[in-house]
């Protein structure tokens, strides 16, 4: 993109303040967006990024401050008014009707023609025009539920563009994508930028911010700390600004796990699971995890890692093969029995599988405890000593607020995950199965969780870690295993290999085994 001599400002936020009850979410924030730039907004969870964007696209009304669009001061009361001014939003959780086709989703609410005239076929061709203009190809006539996550996201982007967005806000768009989908998204965002679209990219993945953005605004505790040109800053500087210290994202020097002899903590032999559309299943997989070892699984979504987690945890029964913990065959035992012999499980989908959102923290702790004796059934679940024990654990794992009677729903995503960790790690687990443990969680909280994983490893636990974040795998794991189409594609040493190498195996470009 040829940099114009005098960058044109399309949106200016001045002194925006927004409070929710007693909480000041955004406190006197200034933000300037230039036409045709990719502007990253970074900050930890709760720094106010989402609230600020909510104000910008009309979801929240600001308590103070002004929004200037193209030189005119505006106030919008709804997203519809914001979109009329060309400001569109792509939410992290897609706003799509799954049973409708992509084209129908794109035109929903802004259909061509009148409310009663037949015009949906027109809609498909309109959708196609927009899709081709920005090289955002999707199967427009297919129901959205049949599309891959990356394609659904393109539908969201197309929706905003179809509605006439010139300024596109993307809220953590890469959180749900696999590495190759991220690359393809970035390519498309660059095409949009070249087409004169201004992009606001909310993220806390600094590697992506450095790779994609032109300028970066850092937020901390509801304020903007700095706005910098991306070429004039570094990941270390940004990380420092985000957390308010000089904390570096450089790989901390952590002693590697000492692999103990004896039976492996977790041993999978000849595991097979049935393939299904969009998911390869596992094909006769062998994997051993020693006591005191963290094995990271790198794979593109749908290559068997989800099955691997469920097989290891005992949530799914394998078609063929055996699972053993410390030499004991547990293939036929469910997750409850495996927990009794030292399993800890942090599922991929926190809201679906790890917590009941309307339950309290205390109930979440009790939910996984299996009565060992009949009298356990009658024990009061919320006794004072029990509450004290849970409160103490919550404090130890830095769950905020450390209130055993707070519902999970009232907690932020980061705190929910810390709660899950507190529950799973307080039982001194011997085999730990982790699915996407830091998805949607900020750097500070992630670092704390990594510390917990390493500590458990050093106490002799075997850890299976599945993550879509390669940087995380290379930081945390002692050994990295790449899955490709349900088979082991490579086993890498993170000390000598680079994420790029893993990428080659993940995409099937190279085979080692």
């Amino acid at each position, binding site marked *: 993109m040829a940099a114009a001599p005098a960058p044109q400002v399309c949106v200016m936020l001045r002194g925006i303040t927004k409070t929710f009850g007693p909480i000041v979410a955004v406190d006197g924030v200034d933000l300037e967006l230039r036409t045709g730039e990719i502007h990253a907004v970074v900050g930890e969870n709760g720094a106010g990024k989402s609230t600020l964007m909510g104000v910008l696209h009309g979801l929240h009304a600001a308590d103070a401050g002004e929004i200037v669009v193209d030189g005119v001061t505006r106030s919008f009361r*709804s*997203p*519809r008014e914001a*979109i009329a001014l060309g400001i569109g*939003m792509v*939410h992290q959780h897609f*706003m*799509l*009707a*799954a*049973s*409708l086709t992509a084209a*129908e*989703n794109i*035109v*929903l*609410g*802004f*259909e061509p*023609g*009148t*409310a*009663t*005239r*037949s*015009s*949906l076929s027109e809609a498909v061709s309109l959708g196609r025009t927009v899709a081709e203009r920005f090289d955002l190809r999707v199967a427009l006539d297919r129901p959205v539920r049949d599309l891959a996550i990356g394609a659904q996201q393109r539908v969201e982007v197309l929706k905003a563009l179809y509605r006439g967005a010139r300024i596109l806000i993307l809220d953590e768009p890469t959180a749900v994508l696999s590495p190759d989908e991220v690359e393809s998204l970035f390519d498309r965002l660059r095409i949009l930028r070249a087409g004169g679209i201004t992009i606001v990219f909310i993220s806390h993945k600094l590697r992506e911010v450095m790779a994609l953005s032109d300028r970066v605004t850092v937020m901390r505790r509801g304020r903007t700390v700095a706005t910098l040109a991306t070429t004039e800053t570094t990941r270390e500087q940004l990380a420092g600004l985000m957390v308010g210290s000089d904390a570096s994202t450089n790989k901390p020097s952590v002693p590697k796990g000492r692999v103990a002899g004896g039976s492996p903590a977790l041993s999978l032999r000849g595991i097979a699971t*049935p*393939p*299904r559309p969009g*998911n390869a299943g596992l094909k006769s997989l062998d994997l051993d995890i020693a006591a005191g070892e963290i094995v990271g699984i790198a794979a593109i979504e749908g290559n068997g890692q989800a099955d691997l987690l469920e097989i290891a945890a005992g949530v799914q029964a394998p078609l063929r093969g055996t699972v053993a913990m410390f030499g004991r065959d547990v293939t036929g035992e469910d997750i409850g029995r495996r927990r009794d012999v030292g399993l800890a499980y942090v599922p991929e989908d926190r809201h679906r599988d790890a917590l009941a959102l309307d339950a309290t923290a205390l109930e979440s702790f009790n939910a996984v405890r299996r009565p060992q004796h009949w009298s356990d059934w009658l024990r009061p679940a919320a006794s004072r000593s029990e509450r004290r024990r849970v409160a103490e654990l919550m404090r130890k794992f830095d769950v905020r607020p450390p209130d055993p009677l707070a519902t999970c729903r009232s907690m932020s995503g980061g705190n929910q995950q810390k709660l899950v960790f507190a529950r799973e790690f307080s039982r001194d687990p011997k085999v730990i199965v982790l699915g996407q443990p830091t998805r949607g969680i900020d750097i500070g909280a992630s670092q704390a969780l990594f510390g917990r994983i390493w500590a458990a490893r050093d106490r002799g636990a075997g850890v299976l870690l599945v993550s879509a974040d390669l940087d995380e795998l290379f930081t945390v794991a002692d050994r990295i295993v790449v899955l490709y189409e349900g088979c082991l594609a490579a086993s890498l040493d993170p000390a000598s290999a680079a994420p790029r190498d893993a990428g080659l195996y993940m995409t099937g470009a190279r085979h080692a085994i």
Partner: protein
Amino acid sequence: MDLAVFLLAAAIAYAVPIVYAGLGGQISLTAGDLNIALEGEMLAGAFVAVLVTYILGSPWLGIAVAILVGGVLGLLFGVMIVTLKGDVFLVGITYNFLLGALTVLLLSIIFGVRGSFSSPQLTGIPIMPIGPLAHVPLLGPVLSGQTYVAWLVVPMVFAWGYVLRSTPLGLRLRALGDNADAVRSAGLDVARMRLGVQMICGMLCGLAGAQLALGTLTLFSSGMSAGRGFVALAIVILVGQRPWMLVLAALLFGIADGIGIKLQQADVPAQIPQMLPYVVTLLALCAVSARRWRAARRDKTSA
């Protein structure tokens, strides 16, 4: 031949109110609200149609007011589940009991009778003449006895099918039932849409009731909807968003009902034939849920 004519005619008579109420239920379910008050709203429509027709002497006015009252009841239903955020099942159950009891009460207050009311002053909905078509074998005798309101089913189902599949309005309704957040994020007023849907549903139930009381019979009797609203509800759940399947299923139940009447004449204990439509409902529900269950299991194992 006579049996076939009888069964088909009985099937249509049975099916028409069910199709109207079913259309209301289908619109409601498409927009994401399972309205279980079809029965009560239909009964209220039947009562109002009889009352107004008796007083004013015109079945057309009776129909009009039944639709109007149905619309008001539907809107009220909507206010309770949308604006006041009441539970759709609790409100629905309340509606069914309340309207059932209210018609009995008003029947005794206004007409001074218990059980049922009929009068020579009560005129039914006129039969639509079908000209030379009446001489076609089988079809002629079946179709020649149908009211204007029964014939109206055909354009109504066509219209609804068109609206549902081919118009922005239908798109918005389908999207609403699928993911209300998607509709809200498109800047549309979800609450107003749901209120409108419940009003339309109530109007259709009112029309269903009017046909029930003034179509084949010309009387009102307490509880005369006799579970037709629930049969309509069951059909809607079975057929989903397919309007013509709704008609087909309603006719199927109608035939079962007709067979029941014939059996009754053949000296079988009355309760057994009366059970027939509901046995068919039960069997159809079992068949559908078995299919869904198998599909779910297939997804799971192959998943």
